[in-house]
């Protein structure tokens, strides 16, 4: 048994299309791994399958030795695995405060929910001033912050982040990524970060995985990946 996230021989199919083929990966506890790939590389599929939104056709996935396959997302949240989905993973019709409250709704330890809420608001102070606003009045960056803050209130161990930079301005992307890196360091979070924006993601990652058409192309430290001119040209785009 390995600690952390261990995925072995993982395949996901949509009808006749194989979105992910025989993928294996291991994320050590406390590590931030960036999964890089273009549209259709299977990276979102990977994260959706790991969080229980879709079912893989074969393979296994374990978190700290416990199988996570066949469980619903709401059960995985209770095991410390929180998926922040692509784009604006908040409920627009609810207020900021209500969106935050959702993250702690299922938890028994209401004192710690209150503490976690304060911690989250300290990390994203802009949210504190908008608690009673509906989430759909927030900017894209603020919504992303709200989604991350809500996840933190669940006290996650493993954060599955799907394209947090999507549709955001470069300056905001920078802010969000600094925050993610900070979370990894402050809370010892394990992070699987799926990104098209390779440069931003590799800046904060301990390790990068490059996916193409559902297959693992290369894995290595950001420095190793960036040093490879072929990879840079074909997948990293910078």
């Amino acid at each position, binding site marked *: 048994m390995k600690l952390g996230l261990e995925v072995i021989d993982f395949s996901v199919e949509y009808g006749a299309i194989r979105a992910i083929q025989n993928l294996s990966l291991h994320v050590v506890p406390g590590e931030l791994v960036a999964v890089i790939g273009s549209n259709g590389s299977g990276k979102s599929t990977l994260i959706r399958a790991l969080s229980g939104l879709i079912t893989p056709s074969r393979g296994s996935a374990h978190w700290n030795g416990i199988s996570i396959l066949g469980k619903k*997302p*709401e059960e995985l*949240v209770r095991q410390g695995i929180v998926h922040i989905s692509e784009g604006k993973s908040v*409920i627009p*019709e609810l207020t900021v405060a*209500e969106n935050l*409250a959702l993250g702690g*709704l299922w938890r028994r330890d209401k004192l710690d929910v209150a503490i976690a809420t304060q911690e989250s608001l300290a990390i994203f102070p802009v949210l504190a001033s908008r608690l009673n606003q509906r989430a759909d009045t927030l900017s894209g960056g603020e919504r992303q912050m709200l989604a991350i803050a*809500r996840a933190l209130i669940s006290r996650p161990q493993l954060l599955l982040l799907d394209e947090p930079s999507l549709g955001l301005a470069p300056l905001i992307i920078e802010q969000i990524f600094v925050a993610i890196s900070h979370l990894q360091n402050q809370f010892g979070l394990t992070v699987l970060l799926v990104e098209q924006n390779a440069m931003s993601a590799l800046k904060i990652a301990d390790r990068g995985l490059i996916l193409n058409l559902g297959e693992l192309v290369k894995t290595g430290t950001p420095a190793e990946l960036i040093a490879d001119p072929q990879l840079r040209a074909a997948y990293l785009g910078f």
Partner: protein
Amino acid sequence: MFIDTLLIGISSGAIYSLMALALVLVWRSTRVVNFAQSGQAVLSTYIGYEISVRTHNYWLSLPLAILAGAILGSLIDLLFMRLLIGRAKSGPIAEIAPVIATLGLLGLIQSFIGLIWGNAFQQYASPLSAKGFTFGSHTIPFSPQNLFIVIASAAVMAIFGAIFKYTDLGLALRAASFQPEIAQLAGVRVSRVRNIGWAFAGAAGAVAGAVITPTSTLSPNSLDLLFVSGFIAAVIGGLDSLVGAVVGGLVLGVGFAFILQYIGGSVTFLVGFIILMVVLLLRPRGIFGHKVNRHA
């Protein structure tokens, strides 16, 4: 005369509101227009009727009828809708199959009632008088039972309103209805919460049936027309909005009462459908419908 008509309108409007509320609760949790709603409500009412016949106690039969309505709603979701929605996942049938199935369920429930209690009219008696209040020599058509209808409906709405606005369960219910996937990812047990939505809907329908029936008679089809009004009210309100359902019901009830009083009974339903058409043409999302498109 004006006040009399208004009071009667509020009393029947309150019932439409409850029916509309029941429809909206199911729509919000499962995205299904539940045509079995009137069947569920009438079965719950029969259960209340049976208890009152055996115990001669309306006040005991009422909460038990409501409880039966809630259990029935929950069971229909668990044993019927979930299986159905699980099987019909894609293609044109996926959207319409559950709705058609509720029509089938309606027939099933009403036949079942006929089998147990027969199709004859029954009297579900309430200790409250169905004769209008008397002021001096003037008797108005608004009776103590009508007053109770208004109070009971207002209580149900206040309780639901408070649950939705101030409790964790209410937050989970709203989150699950707006964005089920995001709610799930936040840890909300969406299918359980949906089931509670069905139970609430069943309870609301049972209240409607058990408080209105003492003013007339009980038969397997006795709530069908009420359901139609409730449906119109729900659509006027936007099908998605609890406030809209209540307002829609009251507007319709008061409107019907005035038409009945000043124009005649033959056109009331005609007017109801005209209102429905006008609302659908001018504001397809209803008066209180949200502007944001939601993921079904």
